[in-house]
């Protein structure tokens, strides 16, 4: 829907994925309706459209967990409010351990969940098998069941947020790309687009994997990089039943989701594949990437052993699409360094289903306030965000969030030394 742009807006949100639409919705709910959302293609066309839509409650910190819990509540009520079905289902989730160390980690997660007020239960292999009957429980040490976790349809949920925003007066303009900014001191004054200018006081960069290049127009270095993300979707499987909990097997890098009678199997593999570090084209809408069977094969082979029904299942889709990540998996939220009035919020869409709601909490008296520093990846030093090669290399060597909960929670407060020296080194050589 392309409409004429207004000459001014109190807030301009750039990006019409789950994050941008959620910010628009929440601003409107807070009574800030003079909001313009600009999307260069169509809503969800970047990465939201292919997200798995997993909604997890337990996050690495108490604040993130509070936000994630709020998200759960929101998604549950959105359909009633907007009339747009979201596909939200409270399926619960199970993470299982294939070794004693992982089991300890899951038990620790249960403690953290308790501290954060999230219901959870440690379960054994028999119970896991009850939820996932086809599963081969060989070597299973047990798991953690979080009943409040959920799944949602990313496209429909984004639509619902957009409807809710529009109902409250937000203008959403699609098919228009932002081309530049004008600033006065630390303040953005004008957003320039292909079809004209919009005067504004607040800008939200919610452009996902485009955010890095967009922020560069403001001389801001945003440490964000897209990586290839793989999943498969099978043909219908009789062994699956609607509402099965999401299953995560971090020791095999995999997550399993029942999706309309089919199985979606995705992975956070140990070595990521960065995609297009030079930038992402404006026209990359609903884009996919070539499959890479060799890269996905270890995951698939382990999954076929772990879940034998997969062996005879036809595979409907080999999917590969980009997702954007920050080097430390934290999302970037808060006023941009050296700017007064811009908010940056480029997060991995993959993770965004737990987090798109954050801004509501932080909008006070016409500006963004009190963003918890450990939510905000803005703490990343200039050293790490300085060059594309640093961010890209860091992304490869960092373990994925699913595989390495330990690092996310800081339970083990260090990383292995990467193969390449990418950080700012100690000054004594």
């Amino acid at each position, binding site marked *: 829907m392309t409409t004429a742009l207004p000459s001014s807006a109190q807030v301009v949100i750039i990006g019409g994925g789950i994050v941008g639409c959620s910010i628009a919705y929440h601003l409107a709910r807070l009574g800030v309706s003079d909001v313009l959302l600009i999307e260069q293609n169509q809503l969800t066309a970047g990465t939201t459209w292919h997200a798995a839509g997993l909604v997890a409650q337990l996050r690495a*910190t*108490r604040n993130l967990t509070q936000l994630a819990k709020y998200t759960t509540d929101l998604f549950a009520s959105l359909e009633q409010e907007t009339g747009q079905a979201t596909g939200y289902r409270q399926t619960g989730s199970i993470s299982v351990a294939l070794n004693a*160390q992982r089991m*300890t*980690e899951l*038990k*620790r997660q*249960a*403690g*953290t969940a*308790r*501290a*954060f007020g999230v219901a959870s239960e*440690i379960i054994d292999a028999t119970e896991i098998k009850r939820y996932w009957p086809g599963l081969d429980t060989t070597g299973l040490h047990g798991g953690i069941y979080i009943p409040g976790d959920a799944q949602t349809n990313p496209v429909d949920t984004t639509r619902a947020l957009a409807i809710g925003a529009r109902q409250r007066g937000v203008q959403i303009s699609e098919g228009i790309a932002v081309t530049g900014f004008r600033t006065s001191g*630390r303040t953005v004054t004008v957003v320039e687009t292909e079809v004209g200018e919009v005067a504004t006081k607040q800008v939200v960069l919610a452009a996902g994997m485009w955010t890095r290049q967009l922020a560069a127009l403001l001389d801001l270095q945003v440490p964000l990089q897209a990586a290839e993300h793989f999943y498969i979707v099978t043909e219908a499987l009789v062994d699956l039943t609607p509402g099965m909990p999401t299953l995560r097997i971090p020791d095999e890098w995999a997550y399993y989701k029942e999706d309309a009678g089919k199985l979606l199997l995705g992975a956070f593999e140990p070595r990521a594949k960065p995609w297009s570090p030079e930038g992402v084209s404006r026209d990359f809408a609903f884009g996919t990437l070539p499959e890479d069977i060799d890269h996905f094969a270890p995951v698939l082979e382990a999954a076929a052993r772990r879940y034998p029904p997969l062996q005879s299942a036809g595979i409907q889709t080999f999917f590969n699409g980009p997702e954007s990540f920050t*080097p430390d998996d934290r999302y970037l939220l808060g*006023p941009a*360094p*050296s700017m*007064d009035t811009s908010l940056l919020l480029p997060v991995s869409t993959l993770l965004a289903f737990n987090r798109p709601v954050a801004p509501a909490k932080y909008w006070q008296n016409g500006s963004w*306030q*009190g*963003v*918890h*520093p*450990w939510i*905000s990846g*803005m*703490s*990343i*030093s*200039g*050293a*790490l*965000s300085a060059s594309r090669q*640093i961010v890209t290399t860091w992304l490869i060597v960092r373990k994925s969030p699913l595989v390495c909960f*330990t690092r996310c*929670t*800081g*339970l*083990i*407060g*260090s*990383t*292995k*030394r*990467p193969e390449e*020296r*990418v*950080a*700012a*080194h*100690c*000054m*004594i*050589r």
Partner: protein
Amino acid sequence: MIRAGAVMGELAGWERPNWFVQPGVAPEYDYSYGPQNWFDCCRAECDAIANRAALFDQSSYPVYMVEGNEALVCLNQISANNIDVAPGSIVYTQWLNEGGGIEADVTITRLSEDQFMVVSSCACEGRDYDWLQQHAGSHQVSVQNVTSGMMMIGLMGPQSRDLLAVLTHDDVSSQALPYYHSKEIELGYARVRANRLSYVGELGYELYMPTEFAAHVYERIIDHGSDIQLSHAGFHAMNVCRIEKGYRHFGHDISDETTPQAAGLGFAVDMDKPAFNGRDALLGIEQPLSERLVNFVLQTDDTVMIYHDEPVFCGDQMVGMTTSATYGFRLNRAVGIASISHADGVTKDWLQNQAFEIEVAGERFPISVSLGPFYDPKSLRIKS
């Protein structure tokens, strides 16, 4: 550092020595939920810190120079503590937001009437610099981030002064350079700023020098350090020691939602100052506090690994959670900091009359809690 046996880790883009291998130990992590493979090495580092001296590469510490006619006015408005001290003095302070929450946790050294050196922590480089710039606003003040140009070597331990005295002709006696004071000294070819303070709870110095002199100063220290069996030490040891001493860490224990009072940092707030950011909010805080940070040690010598976000119980009631913890090699106990809530007030009396437990991976462990630190509670060691 790597030649000296450093095993590196990463923080906020910096690659830093986390621990140093002892002979016969493989220089790599073997991750575990039990005692870590680097424990023995870290224990040796802590032993050096407590009994001799150890050297830390702290080049990742952000340093900002704040200068100008209104530098004092500006910093005193931002800081909860009083920065109007004699040149050569150091002030530990928090920067607060309007709600009284801690936005930054820094030390400020007054170099001269209108020159100040602000030192923050590694992960906060960007945000603290931004906070400074924002609040410098219309003041006649220049704010520079000189982190890359300024190297810092930490020299920590009871023999650090003896070592320093060998390295310089300048007087570094306790009279000439008391606790929380700073002076420029000559060290080899370099002029070095020696700040006498410590994040590990021992007599110690932070030595600042231009980066081009770093290698030289380092070599001088190492050359003379063998006399006292100077050790290298990494950030695991630093974290262990700071937790034993109850020193708060921004991002773990304190954040923009924690007031200095709730953090147990009220001593660093000067309410006699007529105005500073966050003062009004602090005036409105009701006593006794219903939530605040406390220090704890495990009552048994189990090497159970506690990190943060483990629930804390008082009987059947969950009353809080840990904010940071470690195994303490000087105390020989698991030790940490926890945030505790109690509607009627988290007071010393109340704490003393309750039994607390921590839950780790489903198991409960009894702990002792205290408002003061368990290691050197009277701070005799840092002031010696």
